[in-house]
């Protein structure tokens, strides 16, 4: 083997190493954004009023409505969960807060990567209980009396979990444990934005507790914004 060949080989190795190194430099933002709106197809029914029948001194401080379908004037649906399916990324399970405030769950829909720990807080200072209806994760039913400020509960596997309070029949919320870090919950106007999604072709799925799921394909490019707008119909 002559020296020239060795030299080329070394140079090649060096450049590969360099390029890998550049990729790992922090702050270099690869990937694009998926954003859009989830809208209601048709005229949305006005949310039903919930009659507070218990612990009125705490629960009746503000009026309650059924939160299973909240649509704003422009037709945007709040509390829908949008997930970029199959987008690979290091899921960063962390700690998320789920509060019981005025006998409502705040947020009504809580999304988080599987493996996260839910910090369940009770701002009301009355007895609530957190009863989860899960099948993949272990279900539990923990009381949270006034003195118990925080209950921490880890959710290990991806699942959509219904949460209720047996002491206050109208209270129900949802935990959406995802298998990807690329998810969002729509705001009051029904809009969402998911950043830093690695470039690629994906299926974006939306889930809404009353209307079910819908999906569409998107093509995410580095630095670009792919839009995904959904229009959900009531289940027939």
């Amino acid at each position, binding site marked *: 083997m002559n020296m020239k060949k060795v030299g080329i080989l070394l140079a090649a190795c060096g450049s590969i190493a360099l390029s890998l190194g550049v990729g790992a430099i922090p702050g270099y933002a690869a990937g694009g954004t998926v954003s859009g709106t989830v809208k209601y197809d048709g005229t949305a029914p006005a949310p039903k009023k919930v009659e507070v*029948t*218990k*612990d009125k001194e705490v629960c009746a401080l503000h009026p309650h409505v059924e939160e299973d379908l909240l649509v704003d004037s422009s037709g945007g649906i709040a509390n829908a969960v949008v997930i970029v399916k199959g987008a690979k990324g290091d899921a960063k399970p962390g700690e998320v807060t789920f509060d019981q405030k005025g006998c409502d769950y705040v947020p009504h829909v809580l999304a988080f990567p599987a493996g996260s720990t839910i910090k369940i807080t009770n701002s009301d200072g*009355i*007895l609530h*209980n*957190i*009863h989860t209806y899960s099948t993949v994760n272990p*279900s*539990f*039913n*923990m*009381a949270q*009396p*006034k*003195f*118990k400020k925080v*209950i921490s509960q880890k959710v290990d596997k991806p699942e959509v979990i219904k949460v209720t309070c*047996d*002491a*206050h*029949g109208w209270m129900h919320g949802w935990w959406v444990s995802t298998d990807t870090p690329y998810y969002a919950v729509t705001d009051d106007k029904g809009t969402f934005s998911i950043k830093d999604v690695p470039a690629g072709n994906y299926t974006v799925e939306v889930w809404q507790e009353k209307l079910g799921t819908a999906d569409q394909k998107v093509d995410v490019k580095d630095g670009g914004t792919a839009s995904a707008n959904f229009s959900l119909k009531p289940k027939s």
Partner: protein
Amino acid sequence: MAGRPGLDPTEEGKSYSALFVLMVALLLVTAVWSIWDDNISRRPWKEYQVKWDRLAYDKYMKDSDTEQKRLNADPEYQKASKELAAAEKELHSGATAAKLDDLHAKLRDLGVIADDKDQAVRFTKSFLTERWYDYNHAVQAKEDAAPYKDEIDRLNADLAKENLVSDKAKADVQAVKDQIEALNVKVETLTEQMKKLTAKRDDFIEKANSYMIPITVGGVLLFRYPKIPKIQQTSIDDFDRNAFDQAIARVDRCQSCHMGADKKGFEDAPQPFRTHSNFDQIILKHPPDKLGCTPCHDGQGPAVSSARLAHGEDRDWDSPMLKGDKMEARCIKCHIDVGSLHDANGKPIAINWVEGERMFQQMGCAGCHLVAGYEDMAKIGPYLKLASAKLDPSWTVRWITNPHVFRPHTRMPNFMFSREEATSIAAYLMDSSSKNSKDWLTAHVAPATLDADVKNAGLIEEGKGLFESVGCKGCHAIDPDQYGSPVGDSAKFKPNEVRTTKDFAPNLSKIAEKTSASWVYTWLKNPRDFSPHTAMPSLRLTDHEAAALTAFVMTHGDKKEDPGVETALKDPEQIKKGETLVRKYGCFGCHEIEGMDKESRIGVELTTFGSKHLDELFFGNQVDIPETWDAWTFHKLQTPRIYATKDVEQLMPNFDFDDADIQNLRVFLAGLTSGTVQERYRMPGSEHQTQIVAGRKMVNYYNCVGCHIVEQRGGFVRRFYSEDQINFAPPILNGEGAKAQPQWLFNFLQGPTPIRPWLKIRMPTFHFTNTEDDTIVNYFTGLSDVNVQFMFINTNLIPPAELQAGAKLMSKDYFNCFSCHQQGDKKPEGPESGWAPDLALAHERLNPDWILQWIANPPAIQPGTKMPSFYPGGPDDILGGKQDEQIRAIRDYIFWFGTHPGQPIPGQVATNPVKVSKK
């Protein structure tokens, strides 16, 4: 040539050598054939054993390879093997090896010297013995012993010297040995350590070697040969007893082919080598080397000449091998309570037998067939001593002709009567009950308003609401296509599934065709007033409720009068014919009929039906049905008169069973066998088991499972409750024996009092006798295996500090128990669907120990309960945050306020006294 006289020269000249050779050849062939036949063709098990040896060898070698791979990846093993190799290398090379050789040479030389010295010592000892003999002899012979004494002294002095020398030589040898040992010790320690690490692998290799025996020369494997096949057998001398109470020996050779049945790890192997299913429950608890196989499986234990014969699949063998579900039929031989046998996952082991037994009980088979253990079953059919007070005459004739037309899922079988015969039977039933009916009708007059009530649309609607809510649907369906509570296999029961099992209670979709509004009204008010043994309970309906329910159910069906029936039923000729038919077909097996209280069962006794030989089963002209017990029984249950011929009449009616139900019934029938099993092989029956079996009969008779889940089965009414309304369904009774106080349960069953007053469905009053009530209470305590029933609490002895702690824990600022639980007259806030039982009743209802377990972990006792877990995580500022003490304080406070209604806690001023309603 002149021969000796008498000799036939022609004969002498003949040669027999060809014949001789032929005979020898024949003899040889027969000898070879007989050896071949005896050793090969009649011993098919040998082939299986050779296959098995190969299979087991392969498996263990594979296991050993897997283990070796795991070891190779194990850092500890890597380290140990490196160290061992290094130590061995060091020992066997260089200076150490030379030194070791030297030491061994030295050891050899010193060994010779030590032996020499030792020999000298032993010689001297022998001389001493000899001299002592001489000395003693001289003394006794009165000769001069002195020279011997001198000699002894001299030898003793020598021995002392020689001992010193010998000990020195031995010490020298030991010193060299110690030096060698010191050199070897490292390798030895490491080898020991290695052995521990590789124990599992070595065990696999050892097992593999036991199946294919290795021949090695100098550590090199030459070849392996399989073990010589050998019959494997278990002899059980005294398992069965015959009719003369003599022991019958069994010899089971099944393991000669089924080599892997009692070994774990062959779960996926092909038969006959597979590991036995349910290994932990069956094999570990019924070791085949003590019990063999045929006590559970049947078959021809000693036969080894073919699989067919070994499995007893021969017309002449009485007990062919039980296959599939039928195996469950043998549990009953040794276990009293088969229903409670569960596998490792809590699934019933003999579920098909259990279902079959229930079918047998609920279908009233014991009404016609005597079976030991089921002699005292109550009659399952309606009470006919008051038939004419209840039944529409035209309907009665149509019903008797074929009940399945009117109600396809009825338990009543079809006797295939002609209309003429049905008319006769109806005539007899009406006539025989006419006097009773007249008296009864005089004493039970429905309200005059009833006629108007049944036409009142508002009342009908109200009745519909009651029908939906008070509990009728626990047993009855009212939609023609709906099923009520099922008799048969319920594992697959789904709300709208079309099945052909039987309904426990009548479908009421055409009830008005059958009876009158006034009868329905009086019946609903108190069923036992009409029929003293009915399973139908009283729902404690008010007159208004009874009228409303009557109005609703009477909108179902219309009267259909067949002309001429009324007259025909009064014909004395018909009545007489009817009586004959009732006696012939044994209607009194299921019904109480006036004047027929003492009739005996008309069917054959079935106590040993499972042992019936084929020769005892009459196949009639049915040549297409396979000649097996299984096929005979299946077809008998499916088409009961299938084996009838011109000369052999058969009376058994057609039940129109679902195939699955027939199979389960057949499993139960297969368990009815002759012969008893020796006491020592039987599972000792505890009192609990006897109580459970007795209680289960009650549960089957009264169909508790229509509403409640008992022993993981039933709660059929729950299908009418949506998920968020399930709190309104009747309680689940799994574990009830551990939960409720027996005295309370007894009283509750006598006269139910509301525990959950918000429930619309009612626990009915069954009018149990004391014995029946005790049986049910014992059934629940038996199921929960409760021995010390419960502890008693004198609430006056509870320290005030504990009561205060309990009250504080239950208060609004802490657990806020009364957010959901009723507390005497004080109802919780919010809708009733969120309410929980009255805690003021707990002190007389619940087992104090159970409350402790319940508060500690509710879902462990009742999965999915709405009661949340408060622990772990009690408050730190009460009772030092100790969980056990807090739970006890809650329990004690609950008992205290139940027994001290309206009283303030000692040491505290009452701010909000608890009121308890008095019943």
